[in-house]
């Protein structure tokens, strides 16, 4: 006997196309105020990004990973998060951090190389940045399992890229999530490039969304540059998770408009024409077109929003750069809750060294990545 015992489908969702044309039937309920909020946070994210790039080029920040082009993925999903939820970002989610109330100066402080920037305030329901690709996905599922056990109402939402879907931790986390029906939403920002590897070389799967099917839950692909589609899919997935109906994978199909990080040069491995093509699908300009049509946009408003964002970012940079440095001996203080005798001894030695004139190598030469 031979027969087909199962068939699968993957849904794709686009509501707002690149010309700002909206499928009103699919559009979720959105007040003008919420649409404006979407626009304003996307602008804020972009202004943050531009500023961070500039500061990095001036040597005022360390290596920085840009958000450019992925604003709709972050703001569309981020606006669905409630205080009772919890967020595990990767390392590109500056927009989500700002949306969740992270003081912007802390983000600059972190990217400048100060760990205190990731001392997330108590009222911000987020985890610090995870640099290693995909390793935070099991953490997200574990927290979701804890929420289940603690009978909490909230859900967990976690962000990662297309490259992460090749990591073992992605698969282990997805499998745990499916097996335990954990209240977690996986947001994959498929920006199509994992440093220099295009997504077609990352996997033979036609979509990343379909990977969820193997783990027993729904995966949906959305236009990641369409803030309405991301919002709708996330809203539904979070609602499902919060009501005990298990996890969802959302593949936000987008494009990394910038280099992987400031240490990377994407010109080496991808065509400018591709970048230009995607510039036309910009998430902010299509929302703007829609807002103009709906008469909730004016030149005055545009200028005001931009000026406000720039002001906010400038104030944050100023604050970040005026934070006094911490004492070198504080590097010992967060290894354990209590200093061990060994660490105490090493800390004393460091203080002695400093007192006797051993200087910190402040201007260590930056190692450039081989291109």
């Amino acid at each position: 006997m031979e027969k087909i015992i199962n068939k699968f489908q993957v849904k794709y969702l686009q509501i707002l196309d690149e010309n700002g044309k909206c499928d009103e039937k699919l559009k979720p309920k959105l007040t003008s105020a919420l649409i404006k909020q979407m626009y304003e946070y996307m602008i804020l994210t972009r202004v943050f990004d531009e500023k961070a790039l500039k500061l990095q080029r001036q040597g005022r920040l360390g290596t920085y990973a840009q958000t450019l082009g992925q604003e709709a993925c972050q703001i569309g999903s981020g606006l669905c998060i409630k205080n009772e939820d919890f967020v595990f970002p990767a390392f590109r989610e500056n927009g989500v951090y700002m949306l969740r109330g992270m003081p912007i100066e802390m983000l600059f402080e972190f990217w400048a190389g100060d760990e205190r920037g990731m001392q997330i305030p108590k009222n911000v329901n987020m985890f610090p940045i995870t640099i290693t690709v995909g390793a935070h996905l099991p953490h997200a599922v574990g927290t979701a399992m804890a929420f289940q056990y603690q009978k909490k109402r909230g859900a967990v939402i976690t962000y990662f890229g297309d490259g992460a879907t090749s990591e073992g931790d992605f698969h282990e986390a997805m499998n745990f999530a499916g097996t335990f029906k954990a209240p977690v939403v996986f947001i994959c920002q498929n920006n199509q490039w994992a440093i220099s590897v295009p997504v077609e070389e990352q996997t033979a799967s036609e979509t990343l969304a379909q990977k969820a099917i193997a783990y027993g839950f729904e995966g949906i692909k959305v236009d990641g540059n369409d803030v309405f589609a991301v919002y709708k899919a996330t809203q539904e997935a979070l609602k499902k998770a919060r009501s005990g109906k298990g996890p969802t994978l959302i593949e936000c199909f987008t494009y990394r408009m910038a280099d992987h990080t400031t240490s990377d040069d994407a010109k080496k491995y991808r065509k400018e024409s591709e970048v230009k093509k995607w510039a036309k699908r910009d998430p902010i300009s299509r929302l703007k077109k829609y807002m103009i049509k709906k008469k909730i946009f004016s030149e005055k408003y545009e200028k005001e929003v931009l000026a406000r964002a720039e002001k906010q970012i400038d104030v944050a940079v100023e604050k970040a750069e005026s934070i006094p440095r911490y004492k070198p001996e504080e590097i010992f203080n967060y290894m354990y809750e209590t200093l061990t005798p060994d660490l105490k001894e090493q800390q004393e030695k460091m203080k002695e060294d400093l007192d006797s004139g051993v200087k910190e190598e402040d201007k260590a030469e930056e190692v450039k990545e081989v291109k």
Partner: protein
Amino acid sequence: MSKINMVEAINLALKQEMKKDKTVILIGEDIGEDGGVFRVTEGLAKLYGNDRVIDSPLAESGIVGSSIGMAIAGLKPVCEIQFEGFIMPALDQLISHASRIRNRCRGRYSVPLVVRCPIGGGIKALEHHSDSPETYFIHTPGLKVVMPSGPYDAKGLLISAIRDPDPVIFFEPKKIYRAIKEEVPEKEYTIPLGKAKIVREGNDVTLITYGAWVKTAKEAVEHMSDTGNYSSLSRKNSELKNSSGISVEIIDLRTLSPLDTETIINSVKKTGKAVIVHEAQKTLGLAAEIIARINEKALYSLQAPIERVTGYDVIVPLRLYENYYLPNQQKIINAVEKVMRNAG
């Protein structure tokens, strides 16, 4: 109070901590109905339910990774990795994350996690079931590493590990899972992490070891006193504890990280000689670090070069040749005699 083995003592500790604290949760492979491959979690699923004794999918990074997530959300997960040879897929989660999260966010989140894991050889098992990888964890700042040497210590140390606010790797020497029976109080008690125990006092040689080898070290010293097989040493001390004429002080490290340097140094200053025994491979095994610390803090007290009895720098052989790899009484006696001889 009854005499029980280490498996039963650990089970008792888990049972009591779970009763006392609802945030304590167990997760691992086959730990539910099956009670774990060594039966350490026997009966706990029945007692506390499957949502507290979680049979996980077969994925070590997933087990430790999700436990980290539970820990930062306010639970106290005690996960079981079935064998030390299977802990490697979880190394990334332990070394890159569990150990670093407190520092990464300057104390905003912490990871009160315990990873229980059987360790070491002596049970004539397959490949990956007889290794001693403790050095990887000892080398990692932010982790604590504990290895009990018997039932009584296992219970008290595990309770301390569960209550500790930082990630603790709790290695259980399989060789002595059932080989030692001790009186273990029913009531809960703790043994502080980071403190070694002098299990036998002596004045001539400090014998430093941990885990399964504390038993062997004690037996070796007793054997020496029974047979008196060493007699030609120069006696400096009148308080000789065995008829061989060598008074051996045995230190059980109990916690491998943070290391109780003070107890080691005080003893070596007294005896002037040291032998270190472990089953892990020699190069960069814990003995190397202990020797370095003795050099830093007690070099001028030394009367002879320090001896190491360790595994060789080879892959642990399968069952037929495993014993050639492992320390044993004779190797320990030889090392003790050698330092005595070298001290003249």
